[in-house]
């Protein structure tokens, strides 16, 4: 019994070791090739037992080559170049790529290191071609229609992918994205930009002060204008209100017409009372009514 148990364990161990020798897994983030006597063949996704577990003959009959298909980032150098309008700029960009076709990749590039080296050369040449078609204003501009960074990236990505695909012997890689992450001036240009910045700001400061005074004057003038308009309309409506009182005069005249002379007399003495209310000096002859009464009484006496 003991012997049987030992035998089973031994057989199991042999089976496990055997399976290790004749199977392989292709990871979720991998693509694989199977070389049979040196002739490579692509291993498709799935298709194995339990998905990505595959059988193979032991080495040297068959050999498995696996590539990690994650996105790889390749940063180009900060490279000085001239734009279409002759401006010198320093641009740095990156390329995000992945191995898409491991068979083609294996046949043409073999290793990731080799691919990186060749891609770096290709990037430099092709990016120079693309950006030489654009002016400096296309790299930095406050006008969104003139700013072409995204367009440059798109064209560059297309051109790079096209070159890689059309190259003698496809590379088997896919350019996922490209990005311009540095746009700089040449060292010689920076002092001039510093000077221009200073001059511009000084000019803007003077303009700003002038604008401030102008705006302030305008605000005050508008306020004065508005004030006059308001008072003008207020005066109009005030006169309309006063006119209501004047219309009462017309009604009164109808009453006074019954004795015009008396009405005028009443208004005159009332006017006199109003006019001669105070601080008035009278020089009156003693023979005037009613002071003549003194003389009349005196004469009688």
């Amino acid at each position, binding site marked *: 019994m003991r012997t049987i148990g030992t035998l089973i364990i031994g057989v199991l161990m042999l089976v496990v070791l055997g399976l290790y020798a004749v199977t392989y897994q292709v990871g979720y983030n991998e693509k694989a090739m199977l070389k049979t006597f040196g002739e490579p063949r692509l291993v498709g996704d799935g298709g194995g037992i339990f998905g990505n577990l595959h059988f193979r003959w032991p080495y040297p009959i068959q050999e498995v080559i696996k590539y990690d298909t994650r996105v790889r980032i390749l940063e180009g150098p900060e490279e000085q170049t001239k734009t279409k309008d002759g401006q010198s700029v320093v641009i740095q960009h990156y390329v995000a790529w992945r191995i898409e076709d491991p068979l083609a990749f294996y046949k043409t590039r073999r290793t990731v290191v080799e691919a990186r080296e060749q891609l770096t050369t290709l990037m430099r040449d092709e990016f120079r071609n693309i950006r030489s078609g654009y002016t400096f204003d296309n790299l*930095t501009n406050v006008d969104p229609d003139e700013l072409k960074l995204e367009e440059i990236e798109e064209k560059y990505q297309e051109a790079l992918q096209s070159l890689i695909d059309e190259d003698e012997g496809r590379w088997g890689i896919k350019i996922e994205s490209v990005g311009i992450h*540095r746009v700089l001036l040449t060292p010689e240009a920076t002092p001039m930009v510093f000077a221009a910045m200073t001059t511009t700001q000084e000019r803007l400061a003077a303009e700003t002060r002038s604008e401030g005074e102008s*705006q302030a004057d305008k605000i*005050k003038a508008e306020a004065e204008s508005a004030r006059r308009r308001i008072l003008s309309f207020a005066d109009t409506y005030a006169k309309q209100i006063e006119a209501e009182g004047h219309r009462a005069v017309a009604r009164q005249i109808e009453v006074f017409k019954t004795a015009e002379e008396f009405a005028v007399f*009443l208004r005159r003495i009332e006017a006199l009372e109003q006019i001669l209310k105070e601080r008035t000096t009278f020089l*009156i002859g003693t023979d005037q009514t009613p002071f003549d009464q003194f003389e009349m009484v005196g004469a009688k006496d």
Partner: protein
Amino acid sequence: MAEQPPTPEDHGPHGGDPHGRHHDHSHGHPLPDPDAPLQLEDMDAANRSLADALRVSFGVLKVFMVVVGVLFVINGLFKVEENEIAVKLRFGRLVSVGNEAVTYAPGQVHVAWPEPIDRIIKIPTLSQSVELREEFWWNSDEVDQEDDLPLEYPRDRLEPGIHGYLLTGDTNIVHGRLNISYRIEGARDFIQNVSASGDTNEMLARADQFVRLAAQQAAVKIVGGQSVDSFQRSLDQKSASSSPSGEAQELKFKIQAELDRLGAGIKVESAAWSRRIVALTARPAFDAKTKAESEKRQLVEQADTQSTTVLKAAAGSQYDRVIAAIDAYEAARRSGNEDDIAAADDKLAAIITGDLVGGQVARMISEARSNSTDIEERLRAETERFTSLLSTYQETPELLKDLLWQDAYARILSRTVETFHIPPGMSPNAYFDISADLELRRQDEIEKYKKRRTEKEGSKSPYLTR
């Protein structure tokens, strides 16, 4: 089987025989005959020894197998810590439901087959932060503590590769430091496109690299499309959170867009400038402009204040309603539509003569109302007086007039007036001096008096005024 005599090597390092017994050749015992056959008892002892050794070896092997078996099982248990999620690869294939990877929640123990059947990849989900500290900044070792700015600035020239900076859309050189916080959310995309190493540090390093590049790209595009004024707007260079929210959103959006393009499974939570500053060489000029802007704002604010004061004095705090109504009225006038004009006029009149207005307008309207009321009241009183006296007048007009005049005359002279009586014949009528200002009147009279004296030297004026 022919027995071989024992050799010295068989005796081992201590010269013992294969049975483990020790022979002392110097004790005088007779030496065995090397050609004599091996005895049966010697054979049994050897077999027993071999059997014992095999039994012990198998025992050790069995224990080893059990230990291996236990380890195999234990190795399949895994726990997911807080702030991480786990996904499982079975024979290399991601265990998923539909397109979504099956994730294992933190805080629990889960079971999996040991590798190489299953492979567990734990992914950190804690919010991570990346700072672009040097990418757009200039290098300097010494930093002013108060200003937190490097003491030395390459005022002559900036060297690519040494001094980081950004170019604005109007070709100004600016510097900045950018903070980005992100979180790994898409486990499936992350392990496929960024890293499936299972090593937290390596995975985060790869994630940082993706975020850094995407952030640099976004910063170059955004700053390259804006003016230096926009870059500086709402900016206090000592403030830690100085990004205008719109710009922060744009930064976040662009970084996220690039990460999505790369299928990184990373979600950007925030992106904001922690420092922004223009090239220090030109900074005095920028400061001067900032001061000019401040002065401009001050001037405009003062003008606004004065304007408000003037308009409030004219029409009270609701002056803007009055102006709006006037604008509407004038627009109606321009349109020429009579109905519109009438409606606008009514509205304007209602506002100007209403209770909302104040200031000079209110006083004008109030005065007008008062005048109107006074006129009406006075006319009413006059009318009543006229009406009440009319019948008497019609009967004895002269008598009534004389009486009324005498009454009025008496009332006038009984007030605070000065009265001088002159002899008969000197002046047929009264002389009235009704200047409102006594001082003016006095001066005027003095001048007149002097003039008269000059004309009629030595003669006295018939008028004496005080």
